[in-house]
């Protein structure tokens, strides 16, 4: 039986009077690619924020690899093995491409200030390992972020490359679970197709378990083992893409009651 890698049980979250997530049960098994869909305001990014510890749930539990994530600081959750990208890109724009990725290796490296200043052999070995790790993660995207690009500041990258860099940076934390928040947002059809392929490769070659928020149904259809649909913070459907896409409640959430009725 596959282990539930991530398990949310009865999670609720309110902001002021607004209930953003309501009694949510959601799980991701190891090796799965699960897509979360839903209209804007459905609580999808809030879900990510809850899992990564940016917010604390009002009710319920979030369990990862058998241990609870409640009460942990976000950076602790990341070192436990969960990494994410952001809906609105949050790169370290004034740092180089390579530095962005190397920075994310902090959580699983050890050299402190003293050893860095003294340049101990251990520290130097670790620096080399970090550099190699960064190069390897960046090579995942083909030639796009390789070679001369390593020393370019992140703000000089094109939009699509910035999205790729953010994914590369997230993988540098050596996660088991990747949370991708609208990875194909703003991309043209060719780039979107590439991203969909990339997500598949991330799971197949990289071994990551992936939870994706996505609006583009082609991507969702192409990559998902399972789809979860949210609306107003409540799970309204779950299952394969075909089942969820034709679920009348999902259609209603996206298109309104008349559309659901006409189905």
């Amino acid at each position: 039986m596959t282990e539930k890698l991530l398990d949310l049980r009865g999670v609720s979250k309110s902001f002021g009077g607004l209930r953003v997530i309501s009694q949510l049960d959601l799980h991701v098994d190891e090796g799965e690619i699960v897509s979360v869909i839903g209209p804007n305001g459905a609580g999808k990014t809030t879900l990510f924020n809850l899992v990564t510890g940016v917010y604390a749930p009002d009710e319920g539990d979030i369990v990862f690899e058998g241990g609870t994530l409640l009460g942990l600081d976000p950076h602790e959750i990341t070192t436990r093995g969960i990494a994410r990208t952001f809906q609105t890109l949050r790169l370290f724009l004034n740092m180089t491409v390579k530095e962005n990725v190397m920075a994310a290796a902090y959580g699983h490296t050890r050299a402190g200030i003293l050893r860095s200043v003294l340049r101990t052999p251990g520290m130097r070995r670790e620096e080399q390992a970090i550099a190699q790790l960064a190069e390897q993660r960046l090579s995942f995207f083909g030639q796009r972020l390789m070679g001369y690009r390593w020393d370019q500041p992140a703000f000089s990258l094109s939009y699509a490359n910035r999205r790729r860099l953010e994914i590369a940076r997230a993988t540098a934390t050596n996660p088991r679970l990747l949370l991708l928040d609208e990875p194909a947002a703003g991309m043209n059809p060719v780039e979107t197709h590439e991203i969909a392929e990339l997500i598949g490769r991330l799971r197949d070659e990289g071994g990551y378990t992936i939870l994706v928020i996505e609006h583009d149904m082609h991507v969702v259809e192409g990559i998902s083992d399972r789809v979860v649909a949210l609306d107003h913070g409540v799970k309204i459907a779950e299952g394969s893409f075909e089942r969820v896409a034709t679920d009348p409640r999902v259609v209603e959430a996206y298109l309104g009651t008349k559309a659901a009725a006409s189905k």
Partner: protein
Amino acid sequence: MATDPTDPNAPRVGVDEWVASHEQRRVRRTGLLGVVERELERVPSPAFYLAFGVAAAILPALTSNGYVIKVGLDTLLYMLLALGLNITVGYAGLLDLGYVAFYGFAAYGYAMLASPKFGLHWATVGVIPLVVLATVILGFLVALPSRRLVGDYLAIVTLFFGELFATVYQNGEHMSLLGFTKAKDVTGGPNGIPNIDQFHVFGARIGTLNYTAYYYVALIFFMVLLLAMYLVDRSRTGRAWKSLREDPLAAELMGIPVNRLKLVAFACGAGIAGLAGTVFAAANTAVFASEFDFTSGLLIIVYAMLILGGAGSLGGVILGALVVNVSLEVLRTPGHATWVFYVLIAGTLVARVRPWRWLALVIAGTAGFGFVVHAIVSAAWPRGVHGQAPVGGVLGSGLGHWVILPSNPMTIGNVAFVFLVLAVLALTLLRGWAQRLAMIPTLYLAAFVWENRLAVEPSVTRLILVGVILIVLMNARPQGLLGTSRVEIV
């Protein structure tokens, strides 16, 4: 036909030319300054630091003027302070407005452990590390409750802490523990702590007021810390600090313990200020709390240095401290200051007024305007021109015929100062030929105010100047703190 890989004009396959040439699209200064800047950028930083180190080391050999050495020592102390503040502000992005309190705390700490005050004369090799450690701990303690604060709140808390420190130490000549113990003289109050021990190591003791020796001590400390910062910059902690400055939330979510690193940055900055404080105390042989409060301007001056040089940049620390402190020193003597004032005005005009015809017009116009006004005033009201120009020689006598120097310049000088501020502000609102014509009376007014009021009270003038520097710098370079204006490709 194969492409020659060494030909710079050959097409580079697989290279996105637009992106690869992004360096060329950075905002650059034109003209002479631009050329200088580009050449400077080619020099790798370690070479620059080394050159600075060598130059600074030779300086005392080149001059026997004690005053110059003292200025050099002060500059080095400022550099140390800027280096420490650079970690807190430039790397971790924490606005610490109470930074100078760490400097003062360490200076007093050294004074308490190595002076007749409490009869303690501990060995230098023990006191310095102890005081630095104590300052680091103090930094931790201040940062601890503040670590969850957004930048603005941290600014207030630290600002108040700085003032609290100065107030407590200023009134420390009768301190009692909340009224439970008898009042004791802990900090010497307004009289401070005098007769501080000089550094002594293995029997060798630095002579009192031997600024040259302290100069070298400060230089060694600075170069060592500079090297350390350079190495940290290229390490995991340096990257983490930079990420923290860029985007604290993203950094936290990439596994970087943001709060912990903020504490460390804060404490490191405090520690460096602590080290500088011990040198300050020993070199000056006495400490007074008033030197560390807000009105002394120390905090503002260090910030001005940091920003002028570009926070986050190590070379900037050196440059900023050098430029600001040397400028402020020059401003102390009215004679030198006046020369610098006019040279600066002339320089700014040359740099900003284009084309040359306008430049000539403005300069000639100001000169002519001045002579005319001076003639009218001396004819109509002789007492208006009998005052003294603060500078002698050729410049002085020239100015005597150009600038109006009333025999009693106080009131009219003050009024003119206010008008000058308003005029300069109005000048920023004008454009084109109106702006250039308006420059003429404004420049003349500036000379009037300078000769009659500003040059005469250099201690206040230098502080006014620092305030103006901060305002102008931040408005001219709002991204200001990071050095390069960037051209973003979206």
